[in-house]
């Protein structure tokens, strides 16, 4: 561009002397030639649309023929979904800018005196280059509920399984009404006396979950002075007769069975054999409860529902923080670098602790930078759209929604351009305080 010879152009400035008046007009005209294209673009694409949208917000679905006054604004504040959007936007604006600034400040301070800080900064900063849309896709992969699909739940599961091991028959249920839940396990609701038998049939066991080496279950033989019984998969194709040991029904080996006395005190426990049989020998007279232990049914960690209605906003905020913390870190880092070191040293010499220096000297000096980060975040959040679109599944979009998304949905998915315009205008109203701030800054500067 710079190599283009410009000398071929006429040079009006160097021509015959003009009157001051002419000269002034010439200057104005050439200035207008420079700002003209920008003015054209701004008029057509921002000024006219702003006026149009504000006007349109007072008309109904079918266009400028249907004046509805402030009805769209009434809907804005009465429609439960848009109200959720307003509430969510409020939560975002209150929490997120501060969280971003806080994270950025921490990172900037932590990395200030670390040699390999640049590498760290690049890693944390890079997400800023990625679209919020792709960010949403990534985090949606991370947030899947099934611990075998979502990385976050897998990590939680790895930890939680350390503390409570899942049982062998997690989904199993008692096969007849005689078997009731008790002590976290399943218990026969009738007591058993020595010489009696206990039939503990279970169903809802997927075939692959039946332990290897399981054999055909056998109806227990009574034995004097002992309580005998069987734990078996009380199911054969078609269902069979619940509570009855039938052919094709396998015993469940390795299940812990507990014997409790009339006071619910644990007396004995036993493990079942290959055919599911078990026996409690040397049982004194009295009535006993027979139960399958709690550990057998202990459910593994099923996954936190990150994308469900109650957590979706938090999940979106985490993804957004991941994308935005780098911005705050870099801006605040630059602010930190520009703080005069003497001031800090002076404070230290006065005997202030590092934390005091940070709170009393660093943070106040950084205040203008922190304000900039906060304000930038607020504007960004009021326009936030992509992340709602890409993270929230259809079933929780109404819990996740934000104003910018409602504007899109009402206008372009539901064809209610009046209501959509009202939402857009509402967003504009919310950013006006920031506009006032900016203009005040500029006037002070001039």
């Amino acid at each position, binding site marked *: 561009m710079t190599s283009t010879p410009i000398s071929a152009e006429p040079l009006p400035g160097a021509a015959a002397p003009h009157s001051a008046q002419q000269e002034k007009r010439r200057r104005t005209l050439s200035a207008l030639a420079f700002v003209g294209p920008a003015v054209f673009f701004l008029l057509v694409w921002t000024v006219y649309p702003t006026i149009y949208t504000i006007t349109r917000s007072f008309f109904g679905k079918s266009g400028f023929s249907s004046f509805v006054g402030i009805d769209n604004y009434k809907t804005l504040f009465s429609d439960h979904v848009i109200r959720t959007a307003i509430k969510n936007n409020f939560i975002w604006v209150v929490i997120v800018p501060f969280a971003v600034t806080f994270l950025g400040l921490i990172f900037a301070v932590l990395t200030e005196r670390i040699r390999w800080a640049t590498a760290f900064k690049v890693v944390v900063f890079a997400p800023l280059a990625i679209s919020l849309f792709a960010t949403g896709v990534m985090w949606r992969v991370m947030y899947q509920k099934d611990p075998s699909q979502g990385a976050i739940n897998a990590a939680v599961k790895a930890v939680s399984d350390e503390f409570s091991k899942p049982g062998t028959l997690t989904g199993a249920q008692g096969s007849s009404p005689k078997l009731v839940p008790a002590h976290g396990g399943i218990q026969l609701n009738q007591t058993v006396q020595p010489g009696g038998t206990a039939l503990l049939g279970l169903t809802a066991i997927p075939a692959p979950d039946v332990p290897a080496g399981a054999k055909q279950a056998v109806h227990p033989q009574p034995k004097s002075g002992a309580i005998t019984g069987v734990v078996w998969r009380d199911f054969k194709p078609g269902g069979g007769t619940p509570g009855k040991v039938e052919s094709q029904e396998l015993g469940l080996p390795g299940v812990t069975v507990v014997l409790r006395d009339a006071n619910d005190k644990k007396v004995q426990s036993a493990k079942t054999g290959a055919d599911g049989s078990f026996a409690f020998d040397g049982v004194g007279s009295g009535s006993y409860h027979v139960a399958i232990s709690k550990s057998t049914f202990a459910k593994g960690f099923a996954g936190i529902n990150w994308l469900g209605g109650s957590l979706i906003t938090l999940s979106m905020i985490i993804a957004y923080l*991941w994308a935005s913390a780098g911005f705050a870190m870099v801006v605040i880092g630059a602010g930190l670098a520009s703080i005069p070191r003497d001031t800090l040293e002076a404070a230290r010499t006065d005997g202030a602790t590092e934390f005091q220096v940070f709170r009393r000297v660093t943070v106040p000096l950084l205040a203008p930078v922190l304000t900039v980060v906060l304000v930038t975040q607020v504007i960004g959040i009021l326009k936030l759209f992509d992340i709602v679109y890409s993270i929230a599944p259809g079933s929780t979009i109404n819990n996740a929604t934000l104003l910018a998304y409602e504007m899109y949905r009402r206008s372009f998915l539901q064809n209610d351009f009046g209501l959509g315009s009202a939402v857009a205008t509402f967003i504009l109203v919310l950013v006006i305080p920031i506009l006032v701030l900016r203009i005040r800054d500029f006037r002070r500067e001039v």
Partner: protein
Amino acid sequence: MGTAEATVGARRQPVVIEESFATKLLRGLSKAPIHLLLVLLALLWLVPTFGLFITSIAKPDAIGTGAWWKVLSHPSAFTWANYSHMFHTHSITSALIRTAIITAGATALPLLIAAAAGYAFAWLEFPGRDWYFLIVIGLLVVPVQMALIPIYRLYNGAHLYDTLYGLILFHTAFALPFAIFLLRNFFIGIPRDLMEAARIDGASEARIFFRLILPLGVPALASLAIFQVLFVWNDLLVGLTLAQSNQPLNPLIAQQLRQFGSNLDVIAPAAFISLVVPLTIFALFQRYFVQGLLAGSVK
């Protein structure tokens, strides 16, 4: 970032006069938790991107039965087929090309227009100049959402709907307020002597603009260009609204999201490609990016 380090180094000199090896070691050790914390944080920050990448190269049935970190230990579950399939799908490759064209156009055009306007606001006199500039600052905060509906209508009438031009022009207009604001502030810092000299030489405004202002403005223009490239490339809303069969990449992928669980083998590679380009640009021009960021925020 470079300056930050330089300052840190400069300050350390006078304070640390002489340290025994033991003191250094002690100091290093006392920082070990911070190092450890930062390493952990950095790894944490990498997980989502890494996870998306692994998901994007996992065989579709591997995605269904287990997650990407399990797939890691089974190289046989990896395949480039997702990518080759994607590039053979006409829709994705053409969307990539469209996105590149839109990005190039919507970066060059606003830079030129904003540079001209920024120059005028900084150095040329015309009535009401400061008032106009105030309006430009005001437009800085107008959300894109304000313009979507009227522009959608306008484009339908003007046959700009679903065209690359339409998208380029829209992005151009919305890049202008910030670009003008930034460039005006940058140009105003050009030494007055330089400008006076050029004017006394009788150079026309056009000549001054092209021969003096633009070359001097390269650092600011470069920063702006990076921002604009990232912004346009990463756009979802405008593409979704103002295009239909000529959509850029992000809106195109967005159409698949409704069936997230079952289309992951299509979504993951496409999303990964969509972020490789801005990440590369970011890596190559990081310096300008940071400069622009600071110029824009720490004014």
